[in-house]
């Protein structure tokens, strides 16, 4: 393990995936404002399916805001205003008449701080499916088991499903939150710095999990941990704050390219730790 090097490039066999053909998620000339504040400036980005895309960049560069555009979580902020096109499977998700609830069912999200609900592990996983109308106990049992297995948490909690979701460790809580998302069978999983509140071992577990999940899900992860981006992602987008304090896309490409042969001087400076 080359832990010393700042850059540990992921050389998985699918490292050559290009965001070509049908993009799962697409942004075209997107601008996001919070009131007068220009948070995200003129970003265009294609994200292909069954891959992990990392969004990296210094604090306050609009990474999380960018991520939240994909499931319209920015809608919760009254002053947020968006320009440009954001597409999911070719559908403009900001056009009138879009069912945001249905969109978020298909584009799930995991947050920075593990946020299990104050209820049992079982109920946490069932929360989404129950709200979506599944009442059958057997069906719910199956969903819980399947989701927890997928989230690599089953073995650790199968004997205490009725215990509070808050009673397990931080890393387990985060995997529980991932299981909660998986339980509603999304197609895309957005992760907003999912490991920043976790210790290194828990972090590695989540990263392994991401690799496994990337076979069947499109994953977009925001991280300020560059090694993490290098380890897990296929594609990397590097964001920076411009002179006008708005976040803009500096470089986007295959992770191996970005980390070994960045085209932009700013990217190189950032990944080699010269700033940020």
């Amino acid at each position: 393990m080359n832990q010393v090097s700042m850059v540990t490039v992921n050389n998985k066999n699918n490292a050559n995936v290009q965001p070509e053909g049908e993009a799962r998620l697409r942004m075209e000339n997107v601008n996001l404002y919070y009131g007068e504040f220009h948070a995200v400036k003129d970003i265009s980005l294609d994200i292909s399916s069954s891959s992990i895309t990392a969004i990296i960049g210094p604090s306050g560069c609009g990474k999380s805001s960018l991520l939240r555009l994909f499931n319209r979580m920015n809608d919760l902020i009254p002053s947020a205003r968006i320009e440009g096109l954001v597409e999911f499977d070719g559908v403009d998700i900001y056009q009138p008449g879009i069912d945001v609830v249905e969109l978020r069912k298909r584009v799930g999200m995991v947050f920075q701080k593990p946020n299990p609900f104050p209820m049992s592990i079982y109920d946490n996983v069932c929360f989404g499916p129950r709200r979506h109308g599944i009442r059958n106990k057997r069906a719910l049992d199956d969903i819980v088991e399947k989701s927890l297995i997928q989230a690599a948490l089953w073995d650790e909690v199968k004997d205490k499903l009725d215990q509070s979701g808050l009673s397990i460790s931080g890393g387990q809580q985060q995997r529980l939150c991932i299981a909660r998302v998986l339980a509603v069978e999304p197609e895309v999983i957005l992760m907003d710095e999912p490991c920043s509140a976790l210790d290194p071992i828990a972090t590695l577990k989540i990263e392994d999990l991401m690799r496994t999940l990337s076979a069947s899900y499109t994953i977009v992860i925001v991280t300020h941990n560059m090694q993490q981006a290098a380890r897990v992602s296929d594609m990397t987008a590097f964001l920076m704050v411009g002179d006008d304090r708005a976040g803009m896309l500096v470089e986007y490409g295959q992770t191996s390219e970005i980390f070994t042969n960045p085209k932009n001087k700013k990217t190189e400076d950032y990944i080699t730790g010269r700033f940020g």
Partner: protein
Amino acid sequence: MEIKNIKSRYLTQRVAIVILAVSALLVIIPVIGIIIYMIANGYSSLNWEFLTASPAQAGKAGGILPAILGTVYLMLGTILFALPVGIMAGVYLSEYTRANWLTRLINMAIINLAGVPSIVFGLFGLAVFVLGLNLGMSLLAASLTLAAQALAMTITTSREAIIAVPKEYREGSLAIGVSKWQTIRHIVLPQASPGILTGAILAMSRAAGETAPIIVVGAAFLVGGLPVSPFDRFMALPYHLYTVSAHIPGMPGEIKWGVALVLIAMVLFFNMLAGIVRIKARKR
């Protein structure tokens, strides 16, 4: 010189702490004093008959059961109307409104509602419920009147309890395609319920002690029999206490204090209940 200076500062600090502590302790004295005085003067009248019989000889003999029941019914009636409206208004104000002139107006209305003198609520109840809706002088009219007064509290406490639910829970729910209403119903309200309940219980115990408004809308000093319908007139402890204390000559002291003791025991019981609910919720 330096060191001396610091020592004098410590002394000032100590004096300040003592003064502050004494001020805080002063609060206990009236509470303990009132309770002890009431127990000392009133406990002799407390017996089974006093709690379970109707008054006789203009309250000089017999018991106060109709007044106890009347107060219990009033509390239940108040909360029956004030709690649902309080919760719904609290949800609306905290979840579905943005800061604009309407919410500012509603907030001002709530603050002013809390400041309206209770006798004014009585007159309002007389005009609107007793005469306007033709409910007559009745338990129902009195419950509605007290509920109108309790609304300020149930709305405020509901709203505050709802706002206090961490936004991470809401986001976690919304982010898996759960609708806003389902999130409120299944995450926010269960989380807020101890706070809502605490406010409701305190509103009830305040309603139990109200005297002025109920005189205007249906409380009576002596009613034959126990209230059986919401349209009956009723007795209530605070009004009974007022009448036996102020209007019945030759009333034995222990009866007045006995009535007061029963009333304050009920109020304290509900306040304690609110405290227990709060502590339990904090532990969870």
